[in-house]
């Protein structure tokens, strides 16, 4: 049975919050799954890679041991320095990169249930790459699934002058066709 005060608060928050809340659902967080978005323009690629931190680090909380801190540092520097996609001749170089750690406390859409004390965090990587011969490339490779065994399914979406497309890489697959 709800108290009157609680009902008033619920209604008030629904009224105040509805326009903003409706457009602001929390992002989904699915362990084992990661997304890579690529936007091509001539030889330039803007990419955004999003993954639950657990896929890349093995943990999602703040680093508690030196070992965990080292893992976090090495993964962060790898994500900053390594082009997350490349041509088969490895012609891509990183022009700019940014790695963000986004923490969540609750309200996540989980694929499974967790203990109450668990926190969730995502890692978001943006890179600008320059790849010579990109226009002619029929297929591209990504080192993500070989570097991080926690990424079981990698969804790749792309847009470019030749249109849009998407694919899903299963474990062990590195290459994908652009379907032009």
């Amino acid at each position, binding site marked *: 049975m709800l108290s009157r005060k609680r009902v008033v608060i619920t209604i008030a928050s629904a009224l105040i919050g509805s*326009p*903003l809340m*409706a*457009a*602001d*659902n929390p992002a989904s967080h699915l362990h084992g799954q990661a997304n890579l*978005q690529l*936007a*091509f*323009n001539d030889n*330039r690629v*803007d990419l*955004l890679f999003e993954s639950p931190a657990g896929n890349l680090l093995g943990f999602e909380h703040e680093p508690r041991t030196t070992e965990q801190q080292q893992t976090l540092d090495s993964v962060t520097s790898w994500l900053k320095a390594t082009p997350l996609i490349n041509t088969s001749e490895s012609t891509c170089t990183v022009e700019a990169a940014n790695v963000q750690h986004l923490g969540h406390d609750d309200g996540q859409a989980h694929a499974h249930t967790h203990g109450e004390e668990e926190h969730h965090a995502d890692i978001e990587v943006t890179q600008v790459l320059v790849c010579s011969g990109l226009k002619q490339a029929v297929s591209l490779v990504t080192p993500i699934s070989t570097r991080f065994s926690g990424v079981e399914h990698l969804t790749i*979406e792309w*847009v*470019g*002058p030749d*249109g*849009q*497309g*998407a*694919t*899903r890489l299963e474990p062990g697959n590195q290459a994908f066709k652009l*379907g032009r």
Partner: protein
Amino acid sequence: MKFRLALSLATASLWYRRKVLALVCLTLTLSVTLLLGVQYLRTEVKQSFTSTISDTDLIIGARSGQLNLLLYTVFHMGDATNNIRWSTFQALEKDARIDWLIPISLGDSYKGFRVVATDKAFKEYFRYGQGQPLKLAGGQWFDGIFDVVLGAGVARTLNHHLNDDVILSHGGGRTSFSNHKDTPFKVTGILEATGTPVDQAVYISLQGMEAIHVGWESGVAIPGRTLTPERAQARDLTPSAITAVFAGLDRKILTFRVQRDINQYAEEPLSAILPGVALSELWRLMSQFERALLGITGFVVVTSLIGLIAVLLTLQAQRAHEIAILRATGASPGLIASLYVIECLGLAVVACLTALVLSSLAISILGPWLLTNYGIQIQLRPLNLDEWVLLASVPLAALLVAFVPALSAWQKSRSQGFGSPEEL
């Protein structure tokens, strides 16, 4: 010298048996045509599916899954979960990154075909296939409130012509009992066939959609409150809501950024999807179908090659008499063997070339006819690498097959002891 002799002997032999060989060549040609046809169809089905919509960077609708949004806006399957406000459309129009917008409003039908309310931007910016624009087979794009443009499939199925009167039905059913009888539409244009769901819809203006629903607020027409065509002209018919918007961007590289901004639009929950990405996902769901087609291609390849081998072996078996005479007149075993090889290879190459010409002719002649009459789009295009490999496998198989009678003839010739001792 020996090669020229072999060639002239092979040509003479082929010419002598031209009637039988023509039949054999015909069989081979048909096999190769079938082989190419099935493989071509397999790739074309995928191509035709993924080019249902082109050059549209984003489809924006009420918050829902990307497949749902794609299905009801592009394929006219299923229904919208919610509408989006007209004010949202106006806000999108102000976004400098967006080059063009096509508003669409769904919900009514005409004898089972969807009614799509839109504006002039649809004709101007909607693209399908490899960026092909919509063309009118006759008449012009709608201008007035009660003008309607029919998709090619609708006009063909219902045998409609320009200036026909059309009464739209309320809701989406094939047999709707609530019709907008007070507000008939006039056919002002008929679109050319595209081989896409565009053919299976009728197009009216947003104002037209608004006008026919005045007085229908409760779901049925309230007598006296519906508009007459004359009264509609004097009324402001700006819609309050639409179903979805197709958007094109100036710079494609911004697509994901604009998508993200729209998905986080504070005024209204929206979903922006990338049609190309959604189509890829939809095709992945249908990968079983592609696998089935691949299986059929595999069967056709195996049967065609076995058929080819059988025909060539039968043909060579009938040449025992001719070969014996050639040996008796001094032809060497090597020459006899080369005769077999030249013949098999020659037949296979001729069959492949004829099949190529035949397939190209068939596609260029039947393509437009299939599109107009059945809405199936198959276009002539250069062969891809897989198809060239498949085609090359035919002469290669023929070459391998030729070695069987060639070797046996060579061995027989040696054991029969014809010819000079140094040749043996």
